[in-house]
């Protein structure tokens, strides 16, 4: 027993060390390394691919412009399998490489929460796309958000629906995962503040095959406007189709997934005329347009927020390291927090003390399958 255990642990050590040796041999070039945890497998593998695309696009631009601190920048990617244990391992694997100076974390809030204890231990900056407000408000100094958090999406959806569309009877449909629950709560709060508390607040479980009961609940609630937080585009596509089939045609303002590329493709005409808040809208600014063009040239498809935030993250992180003049984590942190009025693809970055870079959303409209920019709503508080 003793012998076997020893042999086993020796094997384990060897097994773990082998890839590490390969890695260090391969990493002799004097590059600056940025780690990236991204779903390569699992339910969000598709989005993961876009995130990699966006990051690589920014990386190419940075390197073309001379790199960072005079060195080329290299992206080290690990698969987080779209799961929480997966990202914990992926991140700790990256963090074990001491020459990685900063990281790109996940767009999924629970994953960020899962990796957060390790982030504090590592003590290096991590750029995130998760939109749960708590992430940057719970005392972790190393998380920097490159998307507006859910407080803003809820407020923008409410503001646009109530003020611009003039609708007061709201039905809210949200997924029961962390993203949907937090979003639904934020929207409810914002609506209540505007004097239009929702008439229906309906959660659903991800990967549902059928939304008839949800649609009928919306129909019966007598709502004249629909606000949604959908996590997966598949679910959104099924819901949208059934909504139209059962004759619900009220205005619809939703979270970014409503105007995501794959939702538009999957749901087709069912999403025509809907509004979505989008942290990324191609027509919202010149920077966004430029990013859109570059992305199309490189990958032949339209970009969306999944690829825009990593693009901005790499761009701003590189600029910050250059400004800091060093790869010291604290100096990088200060430089990121000092980033103000920076025009990114997602919007204008004004970092606050919590590490939130963006404070508003674009509203875009699905105009017969084309996503068109409608307006930008920003908040100062």
């Amino acid at each position, binding site marked *: *027993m*003793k*012998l*076997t*255990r*020893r042999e*086993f*642990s020796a094997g*384990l050590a060897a*097994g*773990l060390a*082998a*890839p590490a040796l*390969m890695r260090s041999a391969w990493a002799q070039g004097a590059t600056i390394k940025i780690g990236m945890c991204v779903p*390569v*497998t699992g339910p969000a*593998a598709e989005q*993961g*691919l876009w995130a990699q695309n966006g990051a690589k696009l920014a990386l190419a631009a940075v390197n073309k412009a001379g790199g960072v601190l005079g060195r080329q920048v290299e992206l080290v*990617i*690990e*698969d987080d399998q779209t*799961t*929480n*244990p997966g990202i*914990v*391992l992926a991140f*700790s*694997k*990256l*963090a*074990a490489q001491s020459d990685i100076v900063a990281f790109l974390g996940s767009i999924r*809030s*629970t994953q960020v*929460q*899962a990796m*957060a*204890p*390790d982030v504090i*231990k*590592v003590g290096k900056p991590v750029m995130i796309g998760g939109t*749960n407000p708590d992430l940057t408000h*719970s005392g972790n100094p190393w998380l920097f958000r490159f998307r507006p958090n859910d407080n803003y999406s809820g407020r923008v959806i409410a503001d646009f629906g109530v003020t611009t569309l003039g609708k007061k009877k709201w039905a809210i449909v949200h997924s*029961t*995962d*962390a993203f949907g*629950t*937090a979003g639904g709560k934020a929207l409810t709060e914002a609506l209540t503040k505007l004097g239009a508390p929702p008439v229906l607040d309906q*959660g659903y*479980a991800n990967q549902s095959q059928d939304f008839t009961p949800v649609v009928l609940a919306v129909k019966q609630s007598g709502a004249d406007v629909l606000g949604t937080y959908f996590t997966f585009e598949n679910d959104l596509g099924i819901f949208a189709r059934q909504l139209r089939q059962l004759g619900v045609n009220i205005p619809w303002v939703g979270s970014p997934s409503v105007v995501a590329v794959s939702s538009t493709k999957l749901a087709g005409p069912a999403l025509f005329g809907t509004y979505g808040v989008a942290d990324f809208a191609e027509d919202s600014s010149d920077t966004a347009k430029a990013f859109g063009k570059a992305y199309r040239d490189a990958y032949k498809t339209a970009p969306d927020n999944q690829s825009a935030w990593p693009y901005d993250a790499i761009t701003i992180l590189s600029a910050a390291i250059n400004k800091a003049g060093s790869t010291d984590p604290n100096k990088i942190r200060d430089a990121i927090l000092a980033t103000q009025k920076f025009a990114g693809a997602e919007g204008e970055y004004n970092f606050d003390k919590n590490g939130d870079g963006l404070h508003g959303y674009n509203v875009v409209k699905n105009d017969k399958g084309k996503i068109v920019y409608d307006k930008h709503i920003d908040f100062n508080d």
Partner: protein
Amino acid sequence: MSASDNMIPAPAVRSKPLIIRHLPYFIGAAVLVALAAGMQFDGYILNILLQATTFSIAVFGLSVVLGLCGQINLAQAAFFGFGAYAVGLGTADLHLNFWLCLVGGCAITLVAGAVLGMSTLRLGGHYLAMVTISFQQIVTLVMINAIWLTHGPDGVANIRRPELFQSSQSYLAFCVAMLAIVGYLVWHLPDTKLGRAMRAVRDNELAAGVNGIDVFRTKVSAFGLCALLGGLAGGLFAGGFAYVSPDQFSFAESIQFLTMSLLGGVASPIGSVIGTGLLILIPEWLRFLKSVPGLYLAIYGLSVILIIRFMPDGIWGFVSDAFTRMRAHSKAPPVAGALQLKPATSGGDVVLEVTGLSKHFGGLKAVDGVDIAVKRGSVHALIGPNGSGKTTTLNVLSGLYKATSGKIVLDGTDITNMAPHQRTAAGLGRTFQNIRLFRSMTALENVEIGAERPGNTMIGKGDDALTERAMEALTFVGLGSRANELISSFSYGHQRLIEIARALASNPTLLLLDEPAAGLNSTEKLELHELLKRIAAQGLTILIIDHDMTLVSEAAQHITVLNFGRRIADGESMAVLRHPDVVSAYLGSE
């Protein structure tokens, strides 16, 4: 059978205390703990080791419930989650002490496992699979949706560790120590009374029941124990990773635990550790293939198929088999003294009194109002043509079937409504027509289970006394020298003798033999006859069912004849065999 005659009686060899025999294990474990505490790991390896260590403990649970007891559990991740949430919510929300939460979590999972087990373990394998899957799904839904309790999909963050083990490294060492301790207990479990009962239940539930094992309670214990280990592992996991969320405890994780268990080898805790380690490491090793999404998980899936295909008993089973083959044959068993049979007696003249016994299957009256009275110290035979209801009668007597009506009194105790194991405790021993031994065990272990009968007055305290009694019984039937061989290496006739030895070791008040001569050749039949004489000589009452008229007429003093479920004759042997109704029942009436 002559071997027993010239065997020199000698006391069984006393074994050294376990703690000393297993000293190398503890030294090895201590070294591992020291390594875990002392070596400088980076965060990645630390996380992998922590995950492997805690998962292994959960997989130990499966090696108990599945490997030892043969019951399936597809909800281990749910129990793992119970433990994790107990520690998570307890330390993060309620600010309770870590140890308190860990113990509380274990208690909750133990109760949950036992209750779930009690509700379904009376039913068989596939039912259990279904109920555990359902339980798993419901637990996941509650974790996600009962936000007031579990924080829902956000999960629980800021889980605390005990003051003593604040650093990750020391916490890992603590977990490795727990792994070593729990691993030791699980490793040792098969040799305890409960462990033997579990193995007996796995090998043959019916035989386990009639050998005095409470099958239901054994299964519930195994299930509760499995859940408990899951909960313990979950608690340790929560402390290690400081964050838990529902997706870590889903059905997919339960399947993963099961795969780990079967891949490593379900029979041993070493297998659990190997399986767990591999399933965590394989995807990590294959990460270099990540440029093609899905490729490395596809290879992982393929390796699962290949390992199962080429290593039927898991990796550890494969390794230990090869090891066993290389080693010489098992050591010689200790020499034993003569078997003493002292059937209990309440003083009455009749040991077994059956009155008006009936067993109906729907419209079929398999046994219909049968009376039997077996005199103390006699050999009594129950005979009848095929389909006359003999074996049904025996099964009603031993409790495998419930009597439709009638009364069975054993040595003054009414056993009509008792479960099989309770009847065994009351003093009933039996053998089966189609032999029911515990196939994965040695002859000695089989007989030990018989000797362990509750209420057996013939054994002293401790494992050594048990072994001594079992050796005596095996020697009595002439197989003492082969005690440490597996059942599969014995001939059919010898297996029958082992089954008789198993019943004798329990020192029964009445021995039921179901067609003991079936399938034996003429020499073996002769030996069996001799054996019955020697048993009867010690005053044990025997009720025998057989077709073999020579055996019955020579061995039995008293015969009861059944036909079409009714008693057609009863009395002194020779007289009964000449009874015209009996003759026509056997030869067919004109």
